[in-house]
């Protein structure tokens, strides 16, 4: 699989549906990888590959819903667009509740699918950028000394230097030095940026 550009993964046990989707996406310049079963996709999928997943709900063997659960368990971020025949509304609700990106009923308008795929790819890009940012924040946090870490925690609580000095039992000057080093190591240009970085790091699931 090509790591650099995004791929649309298509998993549908129906050869005609699979192939027609491949052709449609090709016609708008989207790269695809098609799979007849959920297991084949799981075997081939590497989480580092950007893209989105177009998934049939009903399939023999592992169903679309089960595949979604598997991906959730593995912490995969790939957005999932379910496609299904009519009468699967309860399934659609369940899929969305489990974090599916969208749900389309077959047959669908081509533009509807293409729009959703484009949005899913944008979301995937954003998610991946955020993940990378989080990973970077974590690396920077590791480089902090225990004392700097203490100062960081107090800084993002909005405590003035004078209060921190009291809390830590050091001089205000020492606090200022630690604080400057924290900003430098964390590559933060402002207090606001540092706070946002930390909030984001804490909102994400541990890698």
């Amino acid at each position: 699989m090509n790591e650099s550009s995004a791929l649309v993964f298509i998993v549908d046990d129906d050869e005609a549906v699979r192939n027609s989707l491949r052709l449609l996406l090709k016609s708008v310049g989207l790269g695809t990888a098609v799979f007849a079963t959920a297991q084949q996709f799981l075997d081939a999928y590497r989480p580092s590959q950007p893209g989105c997943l177009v998934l049939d709900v009903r399939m023999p063997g592992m169903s679309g819903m089960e595949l979604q659960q598997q991906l959730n368990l593995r912490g995969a971020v790939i957005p999932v667009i379910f496609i299904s025949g009519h009468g699967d509304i309860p399934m659609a609700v369940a899929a969305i509740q489990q974090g599916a990106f969208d749900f389309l009923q077959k047959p669908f308008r081509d533009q509807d699918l293409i729009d959703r795929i484009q949005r899913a790819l944008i979301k995937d890009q954003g998610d991946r950028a955020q993940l990378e940012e989080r990973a970077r924040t974590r690396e920077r946090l590791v480089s902090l000394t225990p004392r700097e870490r203490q100062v960081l925690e107090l800084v993002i609580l909005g405590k003035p230097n004078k209060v921190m000095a009291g809390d830590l039992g050091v001089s205000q000057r020492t606090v200022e030095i630690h604080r400057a080093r924290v900003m430098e190591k964390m590559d933060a240009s402002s207090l606001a940026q540092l706070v946002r970085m930390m909030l984001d790091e804490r909102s994400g699931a541990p890698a």
Partner: protein
Amino acid sequence: MRLSILTGNPSPREALQALLDAAADGIVLVDHAGEIQVFNRSAEMLFGYQAAEIVGRNLGTLMNDPDRAAHDVATRVSDLVGRGRTISARRKDGSVFPAFLSIGAVAGSEPPAFVGFVRDLTAQQQAEQETLRLRERLMHVSRLTTVAEMVSGIAHELNQPLAAIATYAHACDRLIGVAAPDVAEIQDALQRIADQAVRAGSIIHRLRGLGQTDASEYEFADVNAVICELADLIQNDARARGVSYRADLAPNLPLVRMKRAQIQQTVLNLVCNALEALAPPQLQAREVIVRSRLTPTRAVEITVCDNGPGVDSQTVSRMFDPFYTTKADCAGLGLPISRTIVHAHGGSLKYLPEMAAGACFAIQLPA
């Protein structure tokens, strides 16, 4: 006569008359030539004749087929003694009703005289017909239910080619719009659109056979073809439940005389049961297999097997009883109706308990 009874001293003749008139069955005494000698009150009610007007006339008067009746009396009445048979009887007004006639010889009479007991079967036959009608109706309803359960599957099955057609068409539209269209690729897609339309058509074609009613006639049919016609329905339901379905069919089976729709209903019912047995989510590699083969006794056998939890011993002994069910939303009629259908075909429907895993049912039909 009434007076005599009240005094407690009826003459033997009066006593006999009282007995005759109290009998619920019509009683007719005839001589060796078939001439009516005695006609009791119930017989009067049954046939609409007064005893006075019928006595002395031939027994054939009371029959819808007098020639045959006369023949019976003349030559075969003695054969009928003690056995009885169903006859078509005729009232005074000409109307006909079914009756059961049993005949006894009057002991010591020479030439022999006979006594006939006539019971009106109208109500009984109506009840039987009603039962039959209800059973047919029940079978029809049961099949409709089986089919209804699969309708959502059919909708999904039709959706597949329709979705593919729509998607191919959209793709063609876009592929044609570029500066240098790849004609071969577009032609291939157009061919695939046609293929998918044919596929949709064949699904509908195969479904049509299932809409037939019980009025269908017996025909000689290939069991394998009958099973193949169900493949779409079964495949879909199986797909929806995450079960793989496989048909393992022996070639060159002799044709079987059957009401096609009924046998299909039976197979569908067994497959539905199998799919339901595979519902527990902890089951792995769920599978339903339908097989056909010729048995050593030259019956054509269809088996429906699953690899689910099987049938517990308590259920095995009762599952063919009407209204016995282990399912909350089930009438408990599927297996008994299936067995009734198969029996009507001169065949058998059995549970095969010797199978190691899961449940297995076998339909045997005479070839």
